[in-house]
């Protein structure tokens, strides 16, 4: 069940959902130009930090235990955007970014628990820009900013500015009880009986 904008705001008030800083204003009033709450989603903004993966004569091998995060970090360039120096995302260019807001879906307030899904915005997609194209699920228990995988599939440069609305977050109610991620043990030699 997808939460309406009013239910999203109620969840924020109850602490079942954390969006920090909280998007505002909560409603449109005469003279207010923009409200981040759509009927069934809330807009998230672009953080000023982006990361540009480097090319090279290497390959990512995600099966090499322990070295993946370090390798990814070493082969990416960090940039901080400013209003004066936005980032021109060229056609076919891929970058990583993150949301300005920290998202929290605490599991100590439920059930019912909440989960989320991050989606792009149609205005950006019309320019050929995908702001998030894999792993959209924000699981119950998540706490942190959301990483965005941004690629420009359009024919022209797209300007990324810090704190521009970049994605939308859909909040859903989880049916039933949950246990903490049992499937992860499929790849791990967990001692028998421990789970």
């Amino acid at each position, binding site marked *: 069940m997808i939460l309406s904008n009013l239910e999203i705001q109620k969840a924020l008030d109850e602490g079942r959902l954390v969006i920090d800083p909280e998007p505002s204003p909560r409603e449109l009033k005469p003279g207010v130009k923009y409200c981040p709450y759509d009927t069934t989603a809330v807009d998230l903004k672009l953080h000023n930090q982006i990361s540009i993966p480097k090319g090279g004569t290497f390959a990512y091998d995600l099966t090499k*235990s*322990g*070295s993946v995060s370090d390798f*990814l970090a070493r082969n990416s360039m960090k940039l901080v955007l400013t209003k004066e120096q936005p980032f021109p995302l060229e056609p076919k260019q891929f970058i*990583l970014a993150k949301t300005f807001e920290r998202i929290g879906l605490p599991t100590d307030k439920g059930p019912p628990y909440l989960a989320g899904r991050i989606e792009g915005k149609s205005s950006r997609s019309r320019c050929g820009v995908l702001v998030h194209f894999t792993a959209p699920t924000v699981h119950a228990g998540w706490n*942190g900013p959301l990483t965005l995988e941004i690629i420009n599939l359009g024919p022209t440069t797209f300007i990324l500015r810090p704190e521009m609305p970049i994605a939308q977050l859909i909040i859903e109610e989880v049916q039933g009880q949950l246990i*903490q991620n049992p499937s992860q043990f499929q790849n791990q030699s967990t001692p028998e009986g*421990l*789970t």
Partner: protein
Amino acid sequence: MEIWLDCTISPGQFTGEYAVRGNLFDGTEFSMFAEKEDLNFQSEPTEDNPVVGLIRIVPGPQKDDLLLVRLPQPTFENGQTITVKANQIREKICK
């Protein structure tokens, strides 16, 4: 009381984010990214000088000297909950 796990920390893909490496109970390495607020270290790591530090965890069930712990973010290899040895865990009193 905060509970922490031994780890090695180096710079991440964003400012304020860090690449974290640690070990499961059997010595297998795991890696992940974590925010600064979930880490504890004495000096700022650099690419050439990773630092030894701690990552915040939530402890789960224990059997003998083995313990399930939940990390603040998922690992690349084993999801968000891993098995470690009890002697890899540190406790810290919050003031």
